[in-house]
């Protein structure tokens, strides 16, 4: 009997360890994303595997893009340094699981806000940082100038696991056109297959088409058709059940947009503290106690504007100056004919 005492003790110890884990999970019912982030010292951000203008890494591993800037803004607000972000590149298929299983805390990866995603699978969309719509890219020499020129048997390359797949079906069905969907897991393969001639058209969000066109062997031989077949409001996503974290991400994004509206830039933010406009003063933390409501200090928004810049600066740096979409279209402020409109910070 004593022969087994040693094994017995180790077994008992294992069981005891398991029980401790279990009790800890039960105690952790209240989510602590903010606390964990401050403890770790970096924001865990899920991005794309490379979409110029939105989230793209250069050869040295530095991430840039408007989606990246949302995470940087949160890092500036929460940790005081916009560079304290750990980026995790995710495929369309992996993104939601990575978020719900706690691998990342913000998913900022050109993700379309839909009812079923918001309500069904444990996610919460906090806002829109890019208004997009699905379009088609074709070869210029095909003579196709409108989506009405597609004929039965057209083959369309796209990404797997996206709203694109569903919109494409709705669109071709409504036109009564039979089509062949060719879906790849990674965007690079979609581009390569379309480039080789496997597909007659490449369909995804128009911003994506504009960005991926640069990767084609001869971009000038291709064009994006004028029609937009869907609404694709893209925005950052957080896990359901942590309303404080949700608010922090939402208002970090809103701060960037409102800063542009009031003309506060990374260059003039400090001097705006003495502005005559109370809204501007609130925005740079010179008036009110807005930070406390989010569990942050009062300089959180000032740091966002100083370190990341306002939405216009981010757009210009990442999307306009890189030649992807020089025209802001709907992503212009509501005061300038666009539809960017955020609730007031007060």
């Amino acid at each position: 009997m004593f022969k087994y005492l040693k094994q017995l003790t180790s077994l008992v110890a294992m069981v005891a360890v398991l029980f401790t884990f279990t009790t800890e999970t039960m105690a952790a019912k209240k989510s602590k994303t903010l606390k964990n982030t401050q403890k770790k010292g970096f924001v865990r951000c899920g991005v794309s595997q490379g979409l110029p203008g939105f989230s793209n890494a250069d050869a040295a591993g530095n991430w840039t893009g408007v989606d990246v800037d949302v995470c940087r803004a949160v890092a500036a607000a929460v940790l005081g340094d916009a560079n304290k972000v750990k980026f995790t590149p995710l495929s369309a298929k992996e993104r939601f699981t990575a978020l719900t299983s706690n691998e990342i805390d913000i998913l900022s990866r050109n993700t379309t806000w839909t009812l079923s995603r918001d309500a069904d699978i444990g996610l919460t969309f906090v806002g829109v940082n890019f208004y997009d719509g699905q379009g088609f890219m074709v070869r210029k020499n095909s003579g196709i100038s409108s989506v009405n020129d597609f004929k039965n048997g057209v083959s369309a390359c796209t990404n797997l696991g996206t709203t694109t797949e569903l919109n494409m079906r709705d669109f071709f069905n409504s036109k009564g056109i039979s089509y062949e969907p060719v879906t790849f897991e990674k965007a690079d393969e979609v581009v390569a297959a379309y480039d080789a001639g496997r597909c007659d058209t490449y369909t995804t969000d128009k911003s994506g088409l504009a960005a991926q066109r640069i990767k084609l062997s001869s971009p000038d031989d291709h064009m994006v058709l004028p029609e937009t077949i869907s609404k694709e409001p893209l925005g950052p996503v957080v896990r359901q059940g942590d309303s404080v974290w949700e608010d922090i991400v939402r208002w970090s994004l809103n701060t960037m947009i409102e800063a542009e509206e009031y003309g506060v830039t990374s260059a003039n933010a400090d001097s705006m503290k003495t502005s005559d406009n109370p809204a501007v003063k609130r925005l740079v933390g010179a008036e009110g106690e807005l930070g406390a409501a989010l569990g942050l200090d009062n300089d959180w928004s000032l740091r966002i504007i100083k370190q990341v810049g306002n939405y216009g600066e981010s757009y210009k740096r990442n999307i306009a100056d890189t030649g992807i979409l020089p025209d802001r279209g709907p992503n212009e402020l509501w005061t300038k004919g666009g539809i960017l409109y955020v609730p007031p910070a007060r």
Partner: protein
Amino acid sequence: MNIKKILPQLLTLLVVILIFGFFSYNAQVNMENRGITFGYGFLSQESSFDVQFSLIEYDGSHSYFRAYLVGLLNTILVSVIGIIFATIIGVIVGIARLSNNYLIERSASVYVEFFRNIPLLLQIFFWYFAALRALPLPQDTEPMFGVFFLTIKGFFVPAFVWNNLDIFIYSIIAAIISIIFIRIYAKRKQENEGVQTPVLSISIGLLLILPILSFLFGGVDASVEVPVIKQLSQSGFTYEGGIKLPPELISLALALSLYTATFIAECVRAGVQGVSKGQKEAAASIGLTPNQVLKLVVMPQALRIIIPPTTNQYLNLTKNSSLAAAIAYPDLVLVFAGTALMQTGRAIEIVSITMLTYLSLSISISIFMNWYNKKIAIKEK
């Protein structure tokens, strides 16, 4: 009962149960916290996405369960094609490696060493994108025998349009049943009288004659539908009619069979070399022809060595077919664990179904191979 024997077993069982309990409890709590519901009801909902290539009738108005079947059948299709070709190539290369001809032996070795040492995913990408780059556009393609069109958009082959297809199938079934009876009869005749019957030529004859008779007298009629080129736009073409094999299927089956064949070739070589030289010499000395030596003495013994490791290769091939998602072949992983998972968000349900499916596929293959292995094992009398 000896308590010393039972106690460790019981404790092990307890720990296993606790670990499973811990994980399922944890999953439950976490899902509840995030407002995720659990259930398989989504399987009957409308899937609302289309699939490129399907063996059964399917479009987005069918259910998720139907989409699952589409993926499963596509996985089985590419696995069966892969297993058949891997076996053929593997046996040829395995025997070639034993050849006395230096050139044949060397080229077989180079093939084996080259293909088995490169990761499969890279090979799949290579064949897919190499094929895409090398294949002509539909309008530039030269037809093979006037009716086959190999293009970047797929391999278009003629389809048969049947009249009275059922009679044709009955004639084939009748031929197979008569062959089974003839085999039994031939075996009995050889055991009793020592006379051999040319079973193979009779079988082939039956398989040809009965279907031909069904054409002549059974009213069976088949016409061929040849693919026709169709213009989609000023520069875009495709083919219509006939059967279309997508390039994804072709390159995946090619990559899987070329890769797995290298391992099967090694199994075959090991099997043949495992039969001692004395067996062959003894067989030759009692006057068997070289063909009979191979068929009656060497192969039955070699197969016993070849079958078990080859079973593993068949299992590997089936599981490796899940790499299809990388090149857009709509297999189970791409259709069900990919698109369906993304559209429903039911990760735990779908991944568990997918895992169980692969498990059942693998177990079916190994049950069949074990049965075959037992059948050819030495029967001690």
